[in-house]
């Protein structure tokens, strides 16, 4: 331990701690701008200067490691003067006129720091150099006039996301934040994860969706799990007067530590489907508005009289609703098929393996953040489960080997150190060949190289997605286990939608095939139905659809019940590595729209069925593929 004194307070900290971190631990506030807890200390803005006894000059606390016996002062006149001077230099460099900035009054760290220092004005004359504003990006505006050159965005883009889109051109006062080699932001390699807009301390990168819609002082926060895929990122949904304003990643979340992808941050606010606001019942061939009671009665009567019934539910639904759904249809109506819209494609084979083993065999996603070799099987983490992809991409420059085995179009493969062919259906042969190559080498150069990388790795990870899970047979999975054991590798299955894993725990995994079903119950929620689903339902004479938005499914259905979308409901989600997390309601549902939970309860009542509501117990009944961590 290192002992030091900060503003008269003595504190013991670990070696390698910075003065800034030590000050924070001692409860001493040091203002910063370029520093961000999720980024490597940079020492760019010089706002965090402190006086170190015995040192000739002021030192930046963010990059200064502690030494034993150090005496630090953070609020001497010299330090306060330096802070004001640093802020004055920043303010006078570009267009930092708050009265016409969208982040002014609460959302701007530069302005907040100036207020803290009691700055009523700055003494230097401004440098009236205009820079072009780049508004070519669909979600963000890049305004160099507001930039303080802290490079947080550049560092976040590289260090956290591994995308390396943002960078700087020119030097000094001409320094220009650019995308790629100065191409329009909207035409660049940007993947719209929005980490840069969230980390920007000023208005240099602006979120188009929420610009001028409300500032920190106007908004409410709703922190919960993202429901766009099974990674389970924590996010903050910002609302104002019951309107969705913006979505931000939770910096304090242990899994995603602030990161989100475009699917979690921007796309949910781009919803343009038509909302269903009233129950509909088919009369004389066309759908007519009906009361809830009437629609539920028609649904209940239609479903009760058919034993040849298929019931399907979206894996975007909370566990509470999936359990209720299963109880009503499996036990109450004894439906022939009770499954999820994923039909177990991402989970069934793996869940069966866990059943067989009698114990979990998959590992924590955290292991993917610190690995030296990744084998990706039929999975494109650039296209899906993107935040897990960020964990991999950002390590590649540090020498982490990435082996991508896939025969489909795979954007992750562009970044791979080794690419291997893996035709769908050949999983057993592929894994057997790899195992042989690890044991005794291979004449295939790439396979030998991949085997070598994996063998030499200390912390290898094997990741696979839904394609692998549906293609791999029992034999392939047995070899996968053998491979993992031999290499000491962590197995990480990314699964499908947000509650894919919960659906697997409930055994909602049977395939939905044409089977002469006479009636179907489809709990779509806010999921966009696939064409395959539309086709499969076409021939079924009586279809009840629960949906938030109009689609071909609701257009063809006989009863349509309008239910809530993601932002209007709370519930529990089981992510890909066993974390039980809450999604939190952010806005009220429109008048006359119920949650699927309420709808299923009312339907149960019409059918005189008492459903089993103990969702937690139901979720724990089956051996999971990865240990479930109780929240």
């Amino acid at each position: 331990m290192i002992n030091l004194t900060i503003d008269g307070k003595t504190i013991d900290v670990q070696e390698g701690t910075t003065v800034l971190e030590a000050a924070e631990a001692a409860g001493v506030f040091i203002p910063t701008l370029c520093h961000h807890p999720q980024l490597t200390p940079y020492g760019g803005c010089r706002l965090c200067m402190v006086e170190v006894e015995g040192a000739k000059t002021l030192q930046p606390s963010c990059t200064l490691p502690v030494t034993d016996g150090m005496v630090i002062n953070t609020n001497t006149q010299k330090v306060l003067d330096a802070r004001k001077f640093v802020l004055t230099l920043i303010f006078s460099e570009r267009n930092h006129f708050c009265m016409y900035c969208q982040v002014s009054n609460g959302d701007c760290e530069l302005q907040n720091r100036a207020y803290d220092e009691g700055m009523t004005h700055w003494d230097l004359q401004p440098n009236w150099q205009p820079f072009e504003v780049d508004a070519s990006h669909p979600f963000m505006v890049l305004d160099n006039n507001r930039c303080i050159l802290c490079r947080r965005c550049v560092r976040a883009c590289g260090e956290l996301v591994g995308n390396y889109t943002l960078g700087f051109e020119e030097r000094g006062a001409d320094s220009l934040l650019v995308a790629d080699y100065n191409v329009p932001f909207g035409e660049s390699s940007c993947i719209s994860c929005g980490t840069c807009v969230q980390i920007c301390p000023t208005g240099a990168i602006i979120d188009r969706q929420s610009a001028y819609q409300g500032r920190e002082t106007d908004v409410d926060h709703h922190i919960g799990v993202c429901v766009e895929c099974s990674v389970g990122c924590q996010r903050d949904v910002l609302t104002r007067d019951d309107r969705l304003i913006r979505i931000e990643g939770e910096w304090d979340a242990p899994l995603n530590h602030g990161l989100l992808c475009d699917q979690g941050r921007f796309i949910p606010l781009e919803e343009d489907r038509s909302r269903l606001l009233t129950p509909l019942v088919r009369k004389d061939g066309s759908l007519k508005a009906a009361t809830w009671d009437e629609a539920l009665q028609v649904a209940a009567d239609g479903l009760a009289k058919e034993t040849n019934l298929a019931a399907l539910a979206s894996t975007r639904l909370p566990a509470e609703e999936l359990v209720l759904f299963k109880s009503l249809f499996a036990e109450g109506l004894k439906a022939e098929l009770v499954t999820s819209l994923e039909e177990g494609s991402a989970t069934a084979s793996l869940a069966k393996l866990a059943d067989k083993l009698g114990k979990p065999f998959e590992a924590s996603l955290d292991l993917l953040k610190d690995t030296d070799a990744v084998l990706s099987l039929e999975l494109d983490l650039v296209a899906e489960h993107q935040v897990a992809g960020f964990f991999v991409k950002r390590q590649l420059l540090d020498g982490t080997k990435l082996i991508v085995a896939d025969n489909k179009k795979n954007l992750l493969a562009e970044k791979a150190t080794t690419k291997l062919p893996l035709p769908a259906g050949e999983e057993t042969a592929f894994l057997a060949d790899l195992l042989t190559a690890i044991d005794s080498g291979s004449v295939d150069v790439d396979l030998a190289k991949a085997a070598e990388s994996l063998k030499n790795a200390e912390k290898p990870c094997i990741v696979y997605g839904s394609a692998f899970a549906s293609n791999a047979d029992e034999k392939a999975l047995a070899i996968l286990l053998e491979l993992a054991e031999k290499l000491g590798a962590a197995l990480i299955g990314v699964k499908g939608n947000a509650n894919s894993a919960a659906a697997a725990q409930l055994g909602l995994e049977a395939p939905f095939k044409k089977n002469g079903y006479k009636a179907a119950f489809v709990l779509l929620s806010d999921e966009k139905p696939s064409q395959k689903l539309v086709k499969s339902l076409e021939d079924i004479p009586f279809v009840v659809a629960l949906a938030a938005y109009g689609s071909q499914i609701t257009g063809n259905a006989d009863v349509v019940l309008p239910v809530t979308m993601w932002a209007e409901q709370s519930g529990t989600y089981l992510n890909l590595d066993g974390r039980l997390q809450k999604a939190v309601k952010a806005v009220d549902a429109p008048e006359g729209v119920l949650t699927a939970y309420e709808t299923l309860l009312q339907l149960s009542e019409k059918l005189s069925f008492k459903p089993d509501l103990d969702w937690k117990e139901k979720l724990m009944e089956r051996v999971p593929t990865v240990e479930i961590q109780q929240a």
Partner: protein
Amino acid sequence: MSKPKVASDWLCGCAGCHMSLLDIDERILQVVELVDLRSTPITDLKEPDEDGVTVGILEGGINNTYNEEVAKKMRERCKILVALGDCAVFGGVPAMRNFFGAEAALQRAYVDAESNDSEAKIPTSVELAQMTHVRAVHEVVPVDVFIPGCPPDADVIFYALVELANGRIPEIKNDKLHWH
């Protein structure tokens, strides 16, 4: 002891800061009790007393030769000069034109604007002041008290006036400090 004299004027601004001053409502009676309100844009007297005032208040930035004259006269005739509002403190919204230049601003306003007809032209007259870069007041004359805000809150203005009337320099900080 006679009451301190206060004069004010507006330069390149929108008059909003003086409107915010009027937003102190009935408290203006307390101000008049404390000070001798002399020339202001909203009273009859238009120039500060030749023999000087205690406090001079300027709203707006300085965007032409006439503003320069007014600012210099106010500075000469007052003991304490107050820059009131973002335009006086920073240049404010009018200073946006500094990024394009006065010529481009005139061209846009008098010729290119959609509401202008085909004969529209930039007015020229020897009687018109010459346009300059838009500057904060302190870039032209020394300023003693800065009250930023667009506009500053009436409460902040009232606080500052009472402090000045009592011979104290107001401290604009914490909840009294905002720049927007």
